[in-house]
């Protein structure tokens, strides 16, 4: 609507009333026209008009006949022949017949108002009565001419009256005709007006219809524009929300990286000779760091869910194996608190089901961890059974339990049993929300049954269809039950890592874990190595020169026999889902975000008694003032003292080459090359505590990735060059070179 209507409903009602009124008027106009036309047709209908016209004609004929009779009678009296007498007598009869015609009912009506008519008629009638008494026939005329003459003389008295009557009737009918004409004319005029009215109304209807069409059209366009702007708004909102979530995910990732470094260093520190007090402090620091990492992982999960939903990727999962894994992962916690741990599968369950193993493990691990966390004594159990709705995973504990109110808000964000429990037990409160979201994403749900003081039962109900075992896994080699902490056996590990510092770091860690490792600098070399000898596991950096991790993996998967099935684990500083998916698509078995902390890596390697898993990369921290002394301290305490300076020496040895590559890339403003170099420098320098280099490298990597202009890139790259120069000074100052 161009002008703001008082109210759309009122307007519609008005329009309806208007249409109704116009329609009624139109119907009335049609009715009036119909009536008018029937009137006119009636007016023209023959009988009345004929009778009017005929009356005039009859009166005129009456006069003519009167004259003819007089003439014929006087001729007969003169000629005195029988024939003339016969003629005269016939004339008289005709005269009488004419009299009957003007006496009719109609004539009486027409001439009622005229007194002369009646007088003349009476006069004529009396005359005929008298003549009939004679009677006037041929015989009378020939034999009694006297009486015939008497007839003639009496007739003469009638002449004027008959003449007047004829004229009167003629005038009267003329007046009637003109009145009728007048009526016809006025009716025609009325008809004309009515027709005009009909035209106007029809035009009015047309205008209204046109306006309605336009209005509809405009409405449609407005609707479309509105939909479009809503779409845009939604896209903007979604983009904003995504951006925020991506930011959060990135931040979590960035936070996680130093956390892993911290954890790695702490676990290395644990094995050094320490005083009991230091041991305790170390344990406390370790616990805090682990808790912090859990929180970060939860936040990362939630932000990923919000950024793009949860992608559930079902694949065949062996239930027995899953239970075994869970037992291995939770047993240390349970045994530390002296709890019984009982995980069992009901009889008759399918061996393999279709499920997302990572997500299913995550849910069950979360529930089991909670159960252990909230139980001081007794037993924690997991029972898997078949129900009509699907598989039920019941996690029960003998812990503190919950009342109904607590259960009601249990799955809400940031809620825990109560304020005190959050202080007592730690946790983000995101775990159950994540678990329930995951369960729902898989088409199931989580329910809880609990009473305060009598433990809780969490039931995960998931519609997991049974499926066939995947090809090549027919023999699921029963795992030897063993301590999850001790290495199962020495694994032969091939590491593809282009940065020398990362290589050295991994070497140190893998050596400590009791595995033998072979290092190479890129995917191509790794491929050659794998062809030359057998390995239990390949740790593959995704971004290496010559041949990257994806290409190398594809090539390895095409190798014949067991070599083609060697377990390959991706190593990448990118924690994005796309990188992980790309890696898995390329044929890799797992994906580890760099760097990995020592216990996680150790646990994973231990679980892979058959094929094994990855090794960690260096942890880069980012505090102030150019050089992070803590990192150096950690390295010194975790690694054999003789091994630390070579790390720095190799980094500094590589600096001129890095500077040259950076300069070359700057000269041609090759953003890709700048980014690659910055990425490599970032990881290595952070591992060594060269935080100024790490910060400058990070800045350059981000600018190069976000497509900053050449001038900015130059500037940031210059910063990095300067930081590299100063790094030598930092190292020299600490006697590391």
């Amino acid at each position, binding site marked *: 609507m161009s002008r703001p209507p008082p109210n759309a409903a009122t307007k519609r009602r008005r329009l309806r009333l208007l249409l109704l009124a116009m329609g009624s008027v139109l119907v009335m106009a049609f009715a009036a026209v119909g009536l008018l036309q029937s009137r006119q047709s009636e007016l023209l209908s*023959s*009988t009345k*008009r*004929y*009778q009017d*016209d*005929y009356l005039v004609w009859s009166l005129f*004929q009456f006069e003519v*006949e009167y004259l003819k009779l007089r003439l014929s009678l006087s001729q007969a009296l003169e000629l005195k022949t029988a024939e003339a007498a016969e003629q005269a007598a*016939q004339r008289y*009869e*005709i005269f*009488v*017949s*004419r009299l*009957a*015609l003007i006496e*009719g*009912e109609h004539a009486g009506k027409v001439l009622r108002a005229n007194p002369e008519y009646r007088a003349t008629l009476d006069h004529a009638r009396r005359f005929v009565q008298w003549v009939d008494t004679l009677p006037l026939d041929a015989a009378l005329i020939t034999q009694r001419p006297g009486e015939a003459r008497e007839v003639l003389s009496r007739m003469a008295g009638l002449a004027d009256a008959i003449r007047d009557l004829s004229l009167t009737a003629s005038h009267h009918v003329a007046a009637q005709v003109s009145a009728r004409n007048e009526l016809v004319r006025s009716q025609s005029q009325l008809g004309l007006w009515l027709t005009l009215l009909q035209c106007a109304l029809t035009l009015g209807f047309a205008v209204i219809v046109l306006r309605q069409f336009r209005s509809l059209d405009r409405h449609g366009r407005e609707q479309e524009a509105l939909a479009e702007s809503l779409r845009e708004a939604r896209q903007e909102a979604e983009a904003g929300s995504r951006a925020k979530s991506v930011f959060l995910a990135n931040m979590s990732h960035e936070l996680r990286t130093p956390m892993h470094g911290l954890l790695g260093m702490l676990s290395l520190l644990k094995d050094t000779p320490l005083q009991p007090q230091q041991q305790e402090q170390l344990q406390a620091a370790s616990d805090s760091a682990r808790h912090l990492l859990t929180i970060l992982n939860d936040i990362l999960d939630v932000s990923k869910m919000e950024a793009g939903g949860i992608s559930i990727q079902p694949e065949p999962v062996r239930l027995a194996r899953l239970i075994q894994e869970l037992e291995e992962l939770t047993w240390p916690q349970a045994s530390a608190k002296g709890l019984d741990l009982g995980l069992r599968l009901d009889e008759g369950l399918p061996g393999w089901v279709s499920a997302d193993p990572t997500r299913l493990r995550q849910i069950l691990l979360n529930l089991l961890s909670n159960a252990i966390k909230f139980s001081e004594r007794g037993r924690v159990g997991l029972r898997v059974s078949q129900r009509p709705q699907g598989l039920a995973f019941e996690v029960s504990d003998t812990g503190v339990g919950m009342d109904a109110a607590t259960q009601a808000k249990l799955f809400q964000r940031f809620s825990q049993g109560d304020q005190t429990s959050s202080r007592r037990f730690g946790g983000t409160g995101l775990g159950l929300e994540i678990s329930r979201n995951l369960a729902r994403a898989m088409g199931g749900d989580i329910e809880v049954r609990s009473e305060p003081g009598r433990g809780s039962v969490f039931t995960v109900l998931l519609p997991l269809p049974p499926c066939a075992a995947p090809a090549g896994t027919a023999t699921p080699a029963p795992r030897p039950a063993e301590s999850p902490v001790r290495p199962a056996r020495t694994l032969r590990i091939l590491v593809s890592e282009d940065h020398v510092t990362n290589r050295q770091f991994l070497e140190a860690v893998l050596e400590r874990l009791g595995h033998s490792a072979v290092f190479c600098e890129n995917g191509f070399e790794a491929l050659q190595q794998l062809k030359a000898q057998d390995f239990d596991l390949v740790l593959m950096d995704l971004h290496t020169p010559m041949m990257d991790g994806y290409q190398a993996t594809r090539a390895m998967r095409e190798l014949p026999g067991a070599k083609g099935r060697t377990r390959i684990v991706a190593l990448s500083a990118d924690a994005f889902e796309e990188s992980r998916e790309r890696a898995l698509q390329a044929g890799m078995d797992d994906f580890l975000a760099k760097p990995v902390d020592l216990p996680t890596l150790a646990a994973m390697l231990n679980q892979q008694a058959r094929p094994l898993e990855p090794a960690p990369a260096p942890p880069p921290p980012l505090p102030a003032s150019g050089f992070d002394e803590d990192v150096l301290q950690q390295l010194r305490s975790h690694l054999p003292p003789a091994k630390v300076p070579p790390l720095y020496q190799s980094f500094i040895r590589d600096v001129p080459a890095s500077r040259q590559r950076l300069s070359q890339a700057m000269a041609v403003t090759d953003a890709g090359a700048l980014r690659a170099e910055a990425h490599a420098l970032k990881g290595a320098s952070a591992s060594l505590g060269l935080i100024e280099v790490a910060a400058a490298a990070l800045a350059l990597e981000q600018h190069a990735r976000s497509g900053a202009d050449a001038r900015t890139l130059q500037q940031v790259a210059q910063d990095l060059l300067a930081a590299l120069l100063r790094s030598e000074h930092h190292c020299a100052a600490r006697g590391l070179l």
Partner: protein
Amino acid sequence: MATADHLRMPASLSRRRWLLSSAALAAPAWALEPPAETVVLSISGKISRPNREGRALFDMAMLAALPQHSITQRTPWYPGPRKFTGPLLREVLAAAGAQGQSIEAIAINDYRVTIPMQDCQQHAVLLARLMDDKPMPLRDKGPLFIIYPFDDDVRLRSSVYYSRCAWQLKALDIR
């Protein structure tokens, strides 16, 4: 409305009637029997069966000998419905062997009107000689009256057809 109404007929007429019908069916060479009484109708012009001086003359008995029909209807000339009886005009014309496009009807009062021949073929036009079963005197539009069957076809109720209803009829001229 026109109903065949065979009136009582003198026995002496039956032979003549037979002859008439035969003549109507056969070639026009047969002459019409001359009238025995006062002539009431004279047909002249294009006729093939004259009975005197090139004319076909009829007395009332000859007309009464033809098949009779009756119509009861309202007319402009009388206040209420009236019954008219007489032969069909086309049968009278057939008896005279009339072969023309139009008929000029002439009345005793010197009235004249032209009637198209199709009228007689399309409509049961009556040559009425009785009104309400009584002979019509000259002073009451007699002795013969051409009557159209107005109730058969509403289109007949117009001035044109009213004017073709000639009364005091004395002659027909076939053209």
